[in-house]
């Protein structure tokens, strides 16, 4: 903007210099002392059709020794609609669009939590073990996939599949060699809970040693640009991931309800001794559950790593949300874990419409508390009978 007059004074009003902007609309005032200055734009010298946005034509920058200090007068066409509407136009999003986007993000996060929660819920259900090392199983999946993907150089898709399979095998071995052995020794579930805390420490810091403390990403699909779907912008990888997650959740959920092994798993959860008396090989069922649980947790890890990035604490960081999802839905029910996790995911994201994002977990956790007050047995849980 050429030819606008600008007056520079010291803080107390002593004039320093008056300048006129050049063809690019820029100007320069050398000052000799650091301190506060006052810069006034003479509005009358602006072109007819322009005005200063916000109306304020005075700036008070502080100039420091040896540094320059920039001042900016943003102009807009005169008579343009007021401040408020300005906000809405020009690529800004409405409350509803924002809510839609957040709801989508909530589903995205919720489904990942649900996968992890399903594994936890299965293991809790069949063995009564509150497994605090479950977060590390999630991390394990992500890191395995990373190893195959970046370390060996496979594409992420086969790498992810192999990682899930390997994690399943490791889940099996974990029960076979460790938890099963503990059960046989008659270790109580409280002791096992603490043992799982110990195991979580071992695993987490082993990851730290082998993977390092930094954040990493897979070789493919990093920072994929979003595509616009109505009010939502979503990266294609998210859509595919959500599809896979939902499919796995539903298949496993139905398998639990319908298949013989699924029913056996629930029977073992209820009463292992009676299950054995019915001819169910309890150890075998538990091993299947651990295999499944490990594989599903790993899948959750791969998906989390895909959607975000990888870090050795990634599982630990979402463990609280996993527990929240499991409990909210009703302990030990597979579909409960799904529903609960979705609710947790949704509320984390959508609550940021009202609370600052740094407190987004507060919103979700508060909802959790409220839901449990209304339905102490969880959303899909059932009350036990008394007497």
């Amino acid at each position, binding site marked *: 903007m050429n030819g606008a007059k600008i007056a520079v004074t010291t803080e107390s009003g002593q004039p320093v210099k008056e300048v006129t902007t050049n063809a690019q609309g820029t100007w320069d005032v050398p000052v000799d002392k650091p301190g506060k200055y006052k810069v006034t734009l003479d509005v009358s010298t602006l072109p007819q059709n322009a005005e200063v946005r916000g109306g304020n034509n005075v700036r008070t920058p502080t100039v420091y020794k040896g540094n320059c200090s920039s001042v900016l007068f943003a102009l807009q066409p005169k008579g343009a609609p007021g401040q408020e509407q300005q906000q809405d136009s020009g690529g800004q999003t409405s409350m509803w669009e924002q809510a839609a986007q957040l709801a989508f993000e909530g589903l995205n996060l919720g489904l990942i939590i649900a996968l992890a929660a399903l594994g936890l819920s299965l293991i809790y259900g069949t063995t009564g073990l509150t497994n605090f090392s479950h977060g590390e199983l999630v991390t394990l999946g992500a890191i395995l996939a990373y190893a195959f993907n970046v370390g060996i150089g496979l594409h992420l898709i086969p790498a992810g599949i192999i990682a899930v399979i390997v994690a399943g095998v490791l889940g099996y071995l974990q029960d076979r060699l460790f938890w099963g052995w503990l059960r046989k020794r008659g270790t109580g579930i409280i002791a096992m809970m603490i043992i799982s805390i110990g195991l979580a420490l*071992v695993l987490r810091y082993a990851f730290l040693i082998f993977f390092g403390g930094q954040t990493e990403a897979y070789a493919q699909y990093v920072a994929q640009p979003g595509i616009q779907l109505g009010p939502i912008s979503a990266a294609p990888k998210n859509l595919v991931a959500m599809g896979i997650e939902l499919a796995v959740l539903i298949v496993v959920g139905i398998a639990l309800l319908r298949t013989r092994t699924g029913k056996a798993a629930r029977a073992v959860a209820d009463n292992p001794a009676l299950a054995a008396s019915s001819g169910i090989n309890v150890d075998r069922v538990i091993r299947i559950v651990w295999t499944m649980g490990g594989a599903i947790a790993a899948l959750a890890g791969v998906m989390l790593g895909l959607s975000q990035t990888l870090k050795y604490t990634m599982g630990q960081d979402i463990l609280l949300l996993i527990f929240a999802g499991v409990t909210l839905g009703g302990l030990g029910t597979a579909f409960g874990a799904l529903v609960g996790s979705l609710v947790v995911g949704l509320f984390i994201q959508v609550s940021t419409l009202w609370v600052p994002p*740094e*407190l987004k977990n507060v919103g979700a956790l508060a909802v959790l508390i409220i839901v449990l007050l209304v339905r102490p047995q969880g959303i899909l849980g059932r009350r036990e009978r008394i007497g």
Partner: protein
Amino acid sequence: MDWITIISTTLKSAVGVETVLYGVAAIGLNVHFGYTGLLNFGQAAFMGVAGYGLAVTVTVMGLPFWVGIGVGLVAAVLLALLMGIPTLHLRADYLAIVTIAGAEIVRLIFRSVAFKDVFGGSDGQRGFSNGFYAINPFEHFFTARQYGFNLGPVPLFFSPRQTWVIFVGWVLIALACGVVFLLMRSPWGRVLKAIREDEDAVRSLGKSVFSYKMQSLVLGGVIGSLGGFIYGLAYASVQPDVFGTETTFYMYTMVILGGAARVFGPVIGSMLFWVLLVLVYGVLAEAVGAGYITFMDVNQVGALRWILVGLGLILLLIFRPQGIFGDKREIAIDAR
């Protein structure tokens, strides 16, 4: 390898500030979990509100130290009521998640930018411990520059400030243990233990389960808050992340290591935990520093320490699932 330092730091840690502050808070947790069966995963929040109650009263409001202690205690009681009134009707495992959630909410609020003026954001608050050290007899009464003794070649000395904190801490532990001991062999304690086993049975015998659970929550919370005070005073500051879920996990570990529902269980557990932590690290760091261990660098020592601590926990619980003081018969009963 510098064995003298290793032994000295290890022995000192057995009675040191961390042992004391975790120990006392774990005593509170033991009241909740060990005796009453309340799966309180928010014990750290009781420490937090106490520490912050003290800090905010002294630094932000400029009130005297003792008022701060009072505010901290009241805050702990209020937190117990706030957490308890809605949640004590819940089944045990649900209580766990609600207390975790409650504690996380407390922590997130402490560290939020929105309340930075009051709680100091992620760096927390400091500058409230002068009142405590002003009455430090080890500095003002006695003139020694440090307190302790030499165990053979191993020096075991604490500075007057540390000595004061540790002294007060152990007095508080003794008091808390005394109270717990008296209470748990009284009919009052019997009701708590019965609630742990079966609430409905207790109800059918005419005891108000809710009221007892609440009393337990408040008592354990107040004892836990002492840990918060000790933390704040010993480090002359409070930070929000100290009072996170991890701290509660470690306290659980201590309670169970020592033996749940045992008066001295949490204290011994805390000693064991810190001794393990310090000893393992001391040996590892020295071994790497002195070149005995070559396959890893200093960056990995910290991680390896936790791995070994984790392994230690696992082994302890495998071979002594009832903890140090626990009763094997009790464990046999709740094994599935």
